[in-house]
C-alpha cells in the first residue's frame, strides 16, 4: 500500500471559511428561533451601595414591553454555581459601576432598549474603592497564591555588581471580541437550550445548570462558532443565566446580546498591575537573583489574580528567586483570564528588565538570555519535554537581521524617524486535558465518510480544520470526507478552548478515536493483515454500512514527569517620529517552538493575531477608569484603541522544527496564548533602542516620548 501524503502539517484553508465569509455560519444570536423576544440589560450608575428604590412603571407601560426583571421579581439563583462576577439580580446591593441591575424584555430590541432608558433608580451610595493609584499599597496576599522563594534574593541583590530594580505598570485591558457576548435561551419543558458563545462548552453547561438549580442534562449549550473570546468567554457571566431567566418569565425564547458599551463591565477584564522586578547579575551576565513582586486588584467578593510571575519562574536559570502577589479588593468587575493570562503582562516586566540589564552590562540582549538558559525547569527541577528558546533566538536573529541593530540608542535615524530593534522571549504551558470524541463512519458503495463529534469549541482559530486534518490522516480519508461536529454539549465532553489546551486535547482524542475504530474494524473482520489496512478499506471490504466508536483520552501517564511549555522569541523593529512621538512597528517577527504544527496557515494566523494584540498592549490599548465614579471612560472601540491596519507593518511567523516526545502522543503544543507573550516587551525594548527612552508604563502613546 502506498503511503498517502499527510494533510496534517500542511496549510489547509479553513473548512468553515466559506460559511463565514458568506454569512452562513450561525453565531449565537443568528440561530433562527421562532417567536423570539428581546432582552436588554440595564446597569448601575454607582460603584457601591444599594438600590433604595427602582421605578419600572414607565418601562412596563412602554410599547412592546413583556417584562421588567429586577432583584424584586427575579427567581432565586445559586450564586455559587460557577457564573463569574455576580451581577444576577439577586439583591439590591451594588458592588461595581455597571453591575446588571435589571433586564427589560420586549417584542423588539429597540422597544426593550427604549424602555430600559425609562427606568429610574434611587440609590443609597456607599464610599467605593475605585482608585487603584491610592489603594495599591494596601494589597493583601491572595487566597490561592503563596509567595515563592528560592535562595536569598536580598543577599544576592545587595552584593551584586550589576542590578536593575524597576516597576512596570500595565493598564486595564479588555478582551473586546468582535462578537459581543450573546445568548438565545429557549425552554422546552424542564430543559433549556442556550445558544451561547462559549469557549468551554461543558463548563458553560455546568455553570448554567448549577446556577439555575437544574441538572446538567437539563441544559444544552449550542455554540458552533465563536466571534473571538480571548478568555472572556471561558468562564461564563451573568448574561448567560439572565437570558434563561427572562425566557422562563416571558414563556418565550429570548435573545440577549450585550452592546459594545456594556462589554466593559459585564464580562471581566485584565486588571491593572504594578510589577516590581529586581534582577542582579555578575559582570559576565550570569543572573544571581530575580524578584518579581506583583500588586493588582480584584473584585469585592470574588478574587482573581492573574499569574504575572509565571514566566519568571521558568524562563531563566537563577539561584535566588522571589515571586509575590498582593491584591486589593475594589469596586470593579471581577478580572478574568485574558489571552496569555499573567504571561503577557508578566513578560512585559521581566523581559523589559532583562533588556535594561543587558544595556547596563553592555551585552547583547540575545546573548544575555542564552547565557541564562536553564537546562531543566528551574521551578520544579523537571526536564523539559522540549525547549527551543535558544533556537528561536538564534534563527530569529538571523531572519530578522539582528546584526544591523545598534547597541546604543538613537544611533539609527532615517529622515525624521528613529529606528530601533527589540527582542523579548515568552512562554506558555502546554497541556493535554481529558476529552472524549465519537467517530462515525458511513459507507455508500465505495464512498466512505466520517463524522467527528465532540463538545470542542472553535474560537475562530481553526479547530474544525485541524480536526478534519487529523481525522483524514488517521482514517486515511480525503479531508473533504470528514465532517466535524463541535460546539454542542450533547456531544461527548471535551476540554475548553482555553489555556492553550484545545488543539492538543482535541487532536489527540480524535486521533485516538480514529485508531480505535480502525482497530475495531480489523477485529470485526477476523482477518490477519500483513500491512495495516485503513478504516475506509475495511468498511468496503467488510461491507460495513455504519459503525461508530468513542474514545476517552487523557494525557500520557508520564507526561507529569516533564515540564511542557511552548516558547518563543519576538523581534520588533519600530520607527519613532522624532517630532510627534508616534511609534510604528514597521516589522515584527515571532519565532515559536510549539511542537508539531498541525496547520501552518491557521497557526500563523494565531501567532500574528497574538502579536497584533501584543502590539496593541504595547502602544495603544488602555481602559481608563474615572475613580470618582468607578466607571470606564473608554467604552467604545473609538476610545479603546486596538491597532488598526495602518498600525501594523510586516508580520512574519517562523515555527521551529520541534519534536516533543513526552507531552502528548501527537507532540502538539498549544499556540493560542504564546503568540502574545513577550510581544509588548519586544516593542518597548525596540522603542528604547530607537529613542533612549525606557517606558515602563504601557501603553507607549506619543505623549510619553516627547
Amino acid at each position, binding site marked *: 500500500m502506498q503511503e498517502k501524503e499527510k494533510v496534517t502539517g500542511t496549510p489547509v484553508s479553513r473548512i468553515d471559511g466559506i460559511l463565514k465569509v458568506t454569512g452562513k455560519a450561525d453565531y449565537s444570536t443568528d440561530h433562527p428561533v421562532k417567536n423570539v423576544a428581546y432582552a436588554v440589560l440595564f446597569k448601575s450608575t454607582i460603584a457601591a451601595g444599594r438600590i433604595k428604590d427602582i421605578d419600572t412603571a414607565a418601562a412596563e407601560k412602554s410599547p412592546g414591553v413583556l417584562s421588567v426583571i429586577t432583584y424584586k421579581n427575579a427567581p432565586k439563583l445559586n450564586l455559587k454555581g460557577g457564573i463569574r462576577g455576580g451581577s444576577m439580580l439577586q439583591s439590591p446591593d451594588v458592588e461595581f459601576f455597571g453591575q446588571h441591575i435589571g433586564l427589560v424584555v420586549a417584542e423588539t430590541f429597540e422597544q426593550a432598549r427604549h424602555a430600559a*432608558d425609562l427606568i429610574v433608580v434611587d440609590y443609597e451610595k456607599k464610599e467605593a474603592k475605585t482608585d487603584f493609584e491610592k489603594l495599591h499599597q494596601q494589597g493583601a496576599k491572595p487566597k490561592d497564591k503563596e509567595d515563592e522563594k528560592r535562595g536569598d534574593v536580598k543577599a544576592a541583590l545587595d552584593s551584586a555588581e550589576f542590578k536593575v530594580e524597576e516597576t512596570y505598570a500595565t493598564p486595564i485591558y479588555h478582551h473586546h471580541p468582535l462578537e459581543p457576548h450573546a445568548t438565545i435561551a429557549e425552554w422546552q419543558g424542564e430543559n433549556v437550550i442556550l445558544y451561547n458563545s462559549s469557549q468551554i462548552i461543558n463548563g458553560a453547561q455546568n455553570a448554567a445548570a448549577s446556577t439555575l438549580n437544574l441538572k446538567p442534562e437539563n441544559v444544552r449549550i449550542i455554540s458552533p462558532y465563536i466571534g473571538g473570546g480571548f478568555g472572556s468567554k471561558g468562564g461564563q457571566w451573568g448574561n448567560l443565566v439572565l437570558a434563561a431567566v427572562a425566557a422562563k418569565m416571558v414563556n418565550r425564547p429570548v435573545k440577549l446580546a450585550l452592546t459594545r458599551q456594556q462589554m466593559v463591565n459585564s464580562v471581566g477584564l485584565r486588571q491593572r498591575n504594578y510589577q516590581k522586578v529586581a534582577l542582579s547579575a555578575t559582570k559576565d551576565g550570569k543572573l544571581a537573583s530575580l524578584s518579581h513582586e506583583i500588586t493588582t486588584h480584584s473584585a469585592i467578593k470574588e478574587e482573581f489574580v492573574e499569574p504575572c510571575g509565571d514566566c519568571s519562574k521558568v524562563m531563566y536559570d537563577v539561584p535566588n528567586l522571589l515571586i509575590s502577589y498582593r491584591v486589593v479588593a475594589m469596586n470593579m468587575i471581577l478580572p478574568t483570564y485574558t489571552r496569555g493570562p499573567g504571561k503577557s503582562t508578566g513578560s512585559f516586566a521581566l523581559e523589559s528588565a532583562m533588556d535594561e540589564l543587558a544595556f547596563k552590562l553592555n551585552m547583547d540582549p540575545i546573548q544575555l538570555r542564552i547565557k541564562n538558559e536553564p537546562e531543566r525547569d528551574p521551578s520544579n527541577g523537571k526536564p523539559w519535554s522540549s525547549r527551543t528558546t535558544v533556537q528561536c533566538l538564534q534563527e530569529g536573529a538571523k531572519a530578522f537581521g539582528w546584526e544591523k541593530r545598534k547597541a546604543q540608542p538613537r544611533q539609527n535615524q532615517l529622515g525624521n524617524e528613529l529606528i530601533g530593534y527589540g527582542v523579548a522571549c515568552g512562554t506558555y504551558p502546554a497541556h493535554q486535558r481529558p476529552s472524549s470524541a465519537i467517530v462515525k463512519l458511513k459507507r455508500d458503495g465505495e464512498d466512505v465518510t466520517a463524522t467527528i463529534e465532540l463538545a470542542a469549541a472553535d474560537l475562530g482559530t481553526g479547530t474544525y480544520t485541524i480536526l478534519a486534518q487529523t481525522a483524514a490522516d488517521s482514517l486515511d480519508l480525503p479531508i473533504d470526507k470528514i465532517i466535524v461536529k463541535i460546539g454542542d454539549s450533547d456531544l461527548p465532553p471535551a476540554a475548553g478552548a482555553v489555556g492553550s489546551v484545545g488543539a492538543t486535547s482535541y487532536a489527540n482524542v480524535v486521533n485516538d478515536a480514529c485508531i480505535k475504530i480502525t482497530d475495531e474494524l480489523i477485529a470485526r473482520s477476523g482477518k490477519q493483515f500483513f500491512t495495516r489496512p485503513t478504516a475506509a478499506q475495511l468498511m468496503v471490504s467488510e461491507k460495513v454500512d455504519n459503525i461508530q466508536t468513542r474514545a476517552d483520552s487523557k494525557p500520557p501517564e508520564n507526561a507529569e514527569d516533564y515540564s511542557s511549555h511552548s516558547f518563543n522569541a519576538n523581534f520588533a523593529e519600530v520607527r519613532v517620529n522624532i517630532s510627534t512621538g508616534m511609534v510604528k512597528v514597521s516589522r515584527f517577527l515571532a519565532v515559536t517552538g510549539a511542537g508539531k504544527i498541525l496547520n501552518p496557515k491557521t497557526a500563523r494566523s494565531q501567532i500574528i493575531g497574538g502579536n497584533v494584540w501584543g502590539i496593541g498592549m504595547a502602544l495603544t490599548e488602555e481602559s481608563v477608569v474615572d475613580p470618582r465614579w468607578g466607571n470606564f471612560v473608554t467604552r467604545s472601540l473609538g476610545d479603546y484603541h486596538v491597532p488598526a491596519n495602518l498600525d501594523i507593518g510586516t508580520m512574519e511567523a517562523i515555527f521551529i522544527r520541534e519534536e516533543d516526545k513526552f507531552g502528548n502522543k501527537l507532540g502538539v503544543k498549544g499556540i493560542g496564548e504564546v503568540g502574545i507573550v513577550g510581544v509588548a516587551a519586544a516593542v518597548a525594548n525596540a522603542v528604547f533602542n530607537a529613542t533612549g527612552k525606557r517606558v515602563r508604563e504601557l501603553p507607549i502613546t506619543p505623549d510619553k516620548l516627547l
Partner: protein
Amino acid sequence: MRPFKYTNAKDVTAAAKMLAANPDAKFLAGGTNLLDLMKEDVEQPNELIDITRLALADIKLISSGTNKGGTSIGGLGKNTAAANHPLIRQNYPLLTQAILAGASGQIRNMATNGGNLLQRTRCSYFFDVAMPCNKREPGSGCGAMEGINRMHAIFGWSEKCVAVYPSDMAVALAALDAVVKVRNASGQERTILLADFHRLPGDTPEKDTNLSHGEIITAIELPKNNFADKSYYLKVRDRASYAFALVSVAAALEMNGNKIAQARIAMGGVAHKPWRAFQAEKMLVGKEATEANFRLAAEAEMADAKPLEHNKFKVELGNRSIVLALQMAINGGKS
C-alpha cells in the same frame, strides 16, 4: 434610543421649513454620528428629517461672486467624494489630506460634508448619560474638568466645558478661509466664515455652532488661493488611523521669493472649535521660512495655552506639530 418620527424632505426650503416647525427635530444625512448618539440616548430627537435625497452634492467651480474662481462643495456630498474630487486634489490638497486623516473609509463613504461640520464632541462624559455634562444636559456640571481630560481642550475652554471639536476636515477648511452657505425656512441664504461657524463653549456649551435651528448647510465655499503646493495636514494621534487627534495642524504657506507672503495655520484637538493660530500666522508673514522662525511662531501661539491635568503634553506637542507641519508644507509634503 427613543422612538422618533421619520420624515422626508422634498427640497431644500421644505427641509428647512420642516426643521423650523419642530424644535426637537433633526436632519438625518450620513447618520454616522447622530445615530450612535441616539442609540446611547445622548441625542433625543423626536423627528428625523431625511435630507439625503436633496440635490446638494455637487462640487464645482464658482463662476461669480466674491469667491469667483474658488470651489463650492455641496453640503450633502460625501466626505470621500470631496477628498477625491480633482478640483480638491489639485487646488486644495490640504483638504484632501485632512478628510482622509479622519474616521475610516466606511464612515467617510457615508458621512456628508455638512454633517462633518456638525459632528459632536467625542468627550466620553458627553457620550455617557450616567455622567454629568453641561453640553448634553445644561447645568449638570462638567465631568471632564476634574476628570479624565487627556483628550480635552487647552485653548478657549470655560468652566462649563473643556470638550474639543473632533473634525479634521473643518481644521483644513478653517485654514483655507472657507465659507459656509446656509439657507433658512424662508429660503433666505447667508454665509458664515468657517472660522466663526463653531463657537467656544462659554456659558452655553450646548451650542456647538452659530447655525440657527431651521437652517440647512447648502454648500461650503473655498476661495481661490495659492497654497496648493505648500500645504500640509499633520495629525498626531494614539494610533495610525481611526483615532481622533491629540493635536492636528493644517498649515499652508504662500511664498514671495524667499519670504513668506501668506501663512495659514489651524489646529485641531485643542479647542471647542478649529483653532486658527492667528498669532503664529502674523509672525510668519514677511519672514523667511526657516525652522527658527517656525519655532518662534509656534511658541508665540502656544504661550496662551491653558492645559488641564492630563493634557499638559499638548502644549509641547502643539509646538512641535506646528513646526513640523510648516516644514512639511514648505517642502511640499516631505519631511
